[in-house]
């Protein structure tokens, strides 16, 4: 990671393109709102908004972990599988009581994350390969554990976790927002958060400054595993069951959300507020397209096109490039 200083330009004035580029997600966000509220009358009802938040909160929780990882320049393809693993584990261990089951499955998710992190830092294997492997392997474990069938919880109390709400806000949304705020605070105000930016922004500089690079990366992989596990538990609670196919495509959606939010794939740039934008845009597209009665492949098409255009914008208007 070479420093880009040689080609850096002085930028003191407010640059409209730069502003647009950095906040492109909010532009898309507003466009989505305007579009869907014109197209479908139900879109902007309070319940539907709550709904979008609720539906987005699972992807959202995972995207917190992914944002951390991507800021330090890594990423994780195995989050969907980890989510499924912890969902089936929490149901499977329900007999030991809800707290034990939740704790165990959080632990399992974090452990897979830690394993990923160790392979990336200590073994020095590229994150793409490491998490590609665990994406398949963990999914295999899920199938083996469940014997292919869905597991159903006997505890009705468990399903109340995600059905509960504080005031008008459903608990999963609350958890998501609290974690988001905490996550953003940690990113901004702790040495771990700032360390992530330093590692992703200029790896050499981070090493030279005595930052314990490996430690931060492993923490982020654990965090990714933890958030995936948390999303899995809430999802299992929402369905009071867990199927082995859960979250098959979720790693893709989570990466899309984070990239939409403007977090750079090479790291060093991004924050959770904008990731929230990415998550909500995807939530709106999925929800709005449902309301519009459009076939699901249109979702895919739109998501793919938005992704490519965001990368294009990123490249075109990168303030730090020549």
């Amino acid at each position: 990671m070479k420093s880009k200083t040689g080609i850096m330009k002085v930028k003191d004035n407010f640059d409209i393109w730069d502003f647009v580029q950095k906040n492109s997600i909010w532009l898309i966000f507003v466009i989505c709102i305007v579009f869907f509220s014109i197209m479908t009358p139900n879109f902007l009802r309070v319940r539907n908004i709550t709904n979008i938040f609720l539906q987005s909160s699972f992807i959202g929780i995972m995207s917190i972990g992914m944002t951390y990882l991507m800021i330090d320049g890594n990423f994780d393809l195995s989050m969907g599988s980890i989510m499924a693993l912890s969902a089936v584990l929490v149901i499977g261990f329900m007999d030991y009581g809800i707290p034990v089951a939740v704790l165990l499955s959080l632990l399992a998710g974090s452990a897979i994350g830690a394993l990923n992190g160790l392979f990336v830092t200590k073994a020095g294997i590229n994150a793409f390969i490491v998490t590609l492997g665990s994406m398949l392997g963990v999914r295999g474990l899920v199938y083996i554990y469940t014997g292919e069938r869905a597991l159903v919880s006997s505890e009705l109390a468990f399903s109340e976790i995600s059905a509960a709400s504080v005031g008008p806000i459903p608990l999963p949304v609350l958890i998501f927002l609290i974690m988001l705020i905490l996550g953003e605070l940690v990113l901004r105000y702790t040495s771990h958060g700032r360390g992530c930016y330093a590692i992703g922004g200029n790896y050499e500089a981070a090493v030279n400054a005595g930052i314990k690079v490996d430690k931060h990366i492993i923490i982020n992989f654990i965090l990714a595993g933890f958030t995936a596990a948390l999303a899995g538990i809430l999802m299992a609670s929402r369905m009071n069951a867990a199927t082995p196919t859960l979250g098959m495509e979720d790693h893709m959606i989570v990466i899309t959300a984070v990239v939409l939010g403007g977090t750079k794939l090479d790291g060093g740039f991004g924050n959770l507020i904008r990731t929230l934008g990415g998550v909500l845009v995807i939530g709106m597209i999925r929800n709005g397209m449902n309301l519009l009665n459009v076939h699901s492949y249109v979702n895919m098409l739109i998501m793919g096109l938005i992704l490519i255009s965001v990368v294009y914008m990123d490249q075109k208007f990168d303030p730090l490039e020549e």
Partner: protein
Amino acid sequence: MKENECILEMRNITKTFPGVKALDKVNFEVKKGEVHALVGENGAGKSTLMKVLSGIHSPSEGEIIYQGKKVEFAGPLDAKAKGVVLIHQELSLVDEMTVAENIFLGDLPRNKFGFIDWKGLNKRSKELLERLECEFEPTELVGRLSIARQQMVEIARGLTQDVNIVVFDEPTASLTQEEEKVLFENINRLREQGTAIVYISHRLNEIFQISDRITVLRDGEMTGLLNTAETNECELTSLMIGRDLEDHLDFEKRGRDEIGKEVLKVEGLSKDGLFNDISFSIHEGEVLGLSGLVGAGRSELAETIFGVRKADSGKIFLEGDEIKVGDANKSVDLGIGFVPENRKEQGLILGRSVLDNLSLAKIRNLNRYGFIKGREEKLIYQDYQDKLDIKTPSSKQQVKNLSGGNQQKVIMAKWLCINPKLLILDEPTVGIDVGTKAEIHKLIRKLAAAGIAVLVISSEMPEVMGVSDRILTMYHGEITGEFYAEEATEEKLIKGITGIEAGACKVG
């Protein structure tokens, strides 16, 4: 401590790498409150000396005395903790983070809850920036700052704790004059505060502006310790690049009347900020030397002629036909070869074999329907391995396992086998042992004798004078002089490349 006391003394430092003696019994000392310039051309050993100081390399011989005690730092972090700060040419900053964060990177102040104490961080940063009289805020993003300001951030980072010595490694390489001025003011301020400054540069005017004393290195040896006030640029330059004419460099040169037909003609070539309105031509069988110090725009000019850079304006003609500027692929087809300055980054595919690298340019003509003619390739390989005496266990050896000299020969061979009309050599002998160096010099003359037009870029005076039929001097992106071999003297050239009386000594 007394005012004139030596805070740092490096005694008899020798550092050998396999095959190369990078430093040979170098003595270097810095006093409190002085700016001590360390000068020398690329490869003279300045960076190695500083790496020995900071503990990246441990010296093969010699010792370092710091504050009266013998020390050996464990690395830059250790050195910094003990008050010796190195500020590298390549800034070690995170663009996406604020000034304050970069200053305290790796050691951000925290409050009692474990959160970063932003207030304290910004306050302390502000104090440091004020001490350096910087006009920007600690909350600005580093990526948004100009290079000079970024450099100030690096300096401020060095001052986060008590600092005794600050080493600046070519700090002005990418600064504008205005920014340079700010930097110098800050250096003066540090000096007044009693800090010792080591200032590494090859820009002579700066050195005279800022330094108190000068240590000159050449080929890993110390060639002089001067008081700035008592010397001049000419003396300094000759200490830096002047060498005794080595025996083998006594070649027969072509005179003014013997030049052949024109091969390359450059007309009004300009690129903003790099070089301006360059015009010259090279002829068949002629060795044209291009002499200038690092940063004069020589390499950039060569890269533009070869086509890996685009120009703003100007034309290039090869044998009378205009060629498109900025198309290296075409240049190779037309018979232009280019041996770049940075072997490992620009010259070689390190992970591939010697054979692959050697034939990389030739294979475009060495194939039938795209298939490489393996036997002919082998023959060419053997031919050039033989001719240039490339020492490698086998043609399949990865080129990264070869010594620097042999690597350079592989690159030379890569271009020679396309039978070039024009061969551009950018610092062909930097970092290469003496024996190989002589071989390369002889080779250059041989090529010219065979009718190839050769452009040699070098900052080594004897090299340029020894091999060239004609020499151009370059300073600040402009050509400042032209001399035929018989009329070139070291003094004239030094005037040209240091910009003294620029234009006044133009000949022909």
